[in-house]
């Protein structure tokens, strides 16, 4: 008897530890193409990086009409399409992954096998709203959302005024359950759950006045934006951030940069930037002040061996923070080259997950945007982040005279749990001194 040849499902891989879903960017093969194992098959955007995903098996790619569209949010493990064995009739596989038989809610556990209750495979693909193109008004979005929710949870959500369309269900098949609604309900309203109408009789509170029935459109968060929000929230909730600012003299730095520019002429390489020079100097300062390079962990204070400087890069999609590794071993030219490469990759959305991991200290630069001083937010689990302000020519009193000097403000935010104010100030002092003798 010929066993039917099973198609291989193409699923969404996990690109990072915490990845639950990603954005499907597009197929790199066409429907019906013969795909070899190892060939890039589709492009997927994870939390911070976009990657081409290779086929793990060979076969004929069978896309379905209702498969994911570019821009769709797809859950890790979701089936995107099928790979058929060469020569297999695709008539048998006309059914799309989404229309695969689902476990009917009223299906009894298979009575013919009571010792092994039947568990049909759970269809994991749950395409959320098509988020691209013209955005319908919020009310329409709600009406068309294909979010699954139990009747009980739906009733509860309506009674409590919880917008359940945004909730993530914890049911086995992703169904929103009552507990998910209760967990999402604002604390204040949970007490009046049974009597939702009472609020109508009360004078409008200050908060209700802030949430009128506004018309507008809802722009869903991209995975990048969600990842940024989560990390920054973590940072402000767990760390005890304190920011010190110091005005320092950058005249010597400016001179150095002029020399470097001159030296770079004709080499084909751009000169190192202000930021590159400060990465180099900050690394030297960190070698003297290891606590600023340390990390708070539950089991104790962790002091990494290398100094890996993360550099904040502003991209169209949002902030990305690729990491320069073991900077203490790098020359200024190497720093400049690596930094340039990472920034280009970030802007092109081609960073690999590994490019974003392992930072021990972060430098962020708003000087180019005309900002003098600011309060950078720590990139957990790191201890500190250095913000570079605008370099400006200023009148400075030296002795009895006034001279023109290049000045800038350094903004250092550090985790006060790890390091106290005075040592952090001394780090800035060291950095300032290094800038003078650079």
């Amino acid at each position, binding site marked *: 008897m010929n066993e039917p040849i099973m198609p291989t499902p193409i699923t969404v891989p996990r690109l990072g530890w915490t990845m639950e879903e990603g954005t499907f960017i597009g197929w790199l093969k066409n429907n019906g193409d013969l795909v070899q194992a190892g060939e890039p098959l589709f492009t997927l955007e994870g939390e911070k990086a976009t990657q081409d995903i290779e086929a793990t098996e060979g076969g004929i790619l069978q896309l379905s009409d209702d498969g994911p569209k570019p821009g769709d949010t797809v859950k890790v493990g979701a089936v995107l399409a099928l790979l058929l064995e060469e020569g297999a009739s695709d008539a048998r596989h006309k059914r799309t992954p989404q229309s695969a038989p689902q476990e009917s*809610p*009223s*299906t*009894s*556990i298979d*009575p*013919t*096998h*009571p*010792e092994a*209750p039947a568990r049909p495979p759970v269809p994991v693909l749950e395409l959320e709203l098509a988020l691209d193109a013209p955005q319908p008004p919020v009310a329409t979005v709600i009406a068309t959302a294909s979010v699954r929710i*139990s*009747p*009980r*949870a*739906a*009733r509860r959500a309506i009674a409590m005024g919880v917008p359940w369309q945004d909730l993530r269900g914890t*049911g*086995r*098949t992703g*169904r929103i*359950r*009552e507990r998910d609604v209760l967990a999402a309900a604002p604390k204040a309203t949970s007490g009046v759950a049974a009597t939702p109408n009472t609020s109508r009789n009360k004078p409008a509170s200050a908060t209700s006045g802030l949430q009128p029935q506004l018309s507008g459109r809802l722009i869903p968060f991209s995975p990048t934006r969600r990842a940024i929000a989560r990390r920054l929230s973590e940072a402000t909730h767990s760390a005890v951030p304190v920011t010190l600012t110091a005005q320092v003299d950058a005249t010597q730095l400016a001179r150095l940069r002029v020399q470097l520019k001159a030296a770079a002429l004709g080499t084909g390489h751009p000169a190192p930037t202000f930021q590159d020079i400060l990465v180099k100097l900050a690394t030297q300062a960190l070698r003297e002040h290891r606590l600023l390079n340390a990390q708070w962990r539950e089991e104790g204070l962790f002091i990494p061996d290398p100094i890996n400087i993360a550099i904040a890069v502003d991209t169209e999609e949002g902030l990305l923070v690729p990491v320069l590794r073991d900077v203490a071993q790098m020359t200024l030219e190497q720093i400049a080259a690596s930094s340039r490469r990472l920034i280009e990759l970030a802007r092109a959305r081609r960073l690999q997950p590994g490019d974003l991991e392992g930072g021990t200290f972060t430098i962020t630069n708003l000087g180019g945007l005309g900002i003098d001083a600011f309060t950078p937010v720590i990139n957990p689990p790191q201890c500190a982040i250095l913000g570079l302000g605008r370099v400006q020519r200023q009148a400075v009193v030296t002795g009895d005279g006034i001279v023109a000097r290049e000045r800038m403000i350094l903004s250092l935010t550090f985790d006060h749990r790890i390091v106290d104010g005075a040592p952090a100030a001394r780090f800035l002092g060291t950095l300032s001194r290094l800038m003078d003798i650079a």
Partner: protein
Amino acid sequence: MRQLTMMKATLEALSGEMARNPAIFVLGEGIGKRGGNFNTTSGLFDFHGPQRLRDTPISERGFVGLACGAAMTGTRPVVDFMFADFVLDAAGEIINQIAKIQYMSSGRIKMPIVLRGCIGIGHAAATHHSGSYYSLYAQFPGLRVVVPSMPGDAKGLLTTALRCDDPVLFLEHREVLGLKGPVPEGDHLVEFGKASVMRQGSDVTVVALALMVHKALAACDILERDGISVELIDPRTIAPLDHDTILRSVAKTGRLLIVDEAFAPCGIGAEIAALVADVGFDELDAPIRRLNGAHTPTPYSPPLETAVVPSTEIITQAIRDLCDE
């Protein structure tokens, strides 16, 4: 309270009612001097003699028709079938005559018959001695269907049956006949259509019948240790069925599993599921689930026989799965 087996508890009910009401008499195979295959009439022959404990030949349709006529004349026959499988041989008399005569006579004729027999799988009794037919009888108007799981309930329900003017199918699971439980002394009545809440719980409602009540109780104990709080309901009678208790419980827990040794298709589990899906839909936080015996003639082979009945382990897992939905 004293502990009696279900066998002793129902014998006490029958004995008490026979002493109280001379219109009651018992018909069946081996229920006279022998005292019944399952001791259902043990010792009664010595008290009441052959007039009230009438042994019959193996002719179910004959003696059920006889009982129907006797009931029409004002007596209260108890037909003891030994195994409920053979009630089927008298199905025409029961469904066409006994169930309909009160309606046909505009209530002028009463039909106070108790039809009792053993149901359930166990002891390698094979497929002619293992059936559970309560759902079948519950489908017909005019019949009351009692499926006790506890000795105390069995006494109270049989007493109610013996005082009831409607025909009652009293179906006793053979594997619980020997189980002991507290049984009230003296007059004890349990109303039809009142479920028993065996365990109070908040996470999931389990409705179970007969032997499955005992297996579900064991599952409750296991799950309680893991912090899963099960509300266990024994309907005790499926016609009439206590809708309120089931719906109230599902309103509390949002989850329902029906555990029934009998076949799933068109069974009491389907009936309860339909009830809750209809009236209790908005209370549901998960799909309704049923757990039934395998849809197959009961095998004789002991390991196969064990495999077709929901076990405590399977019930426990089914409850866990439902809580994860």
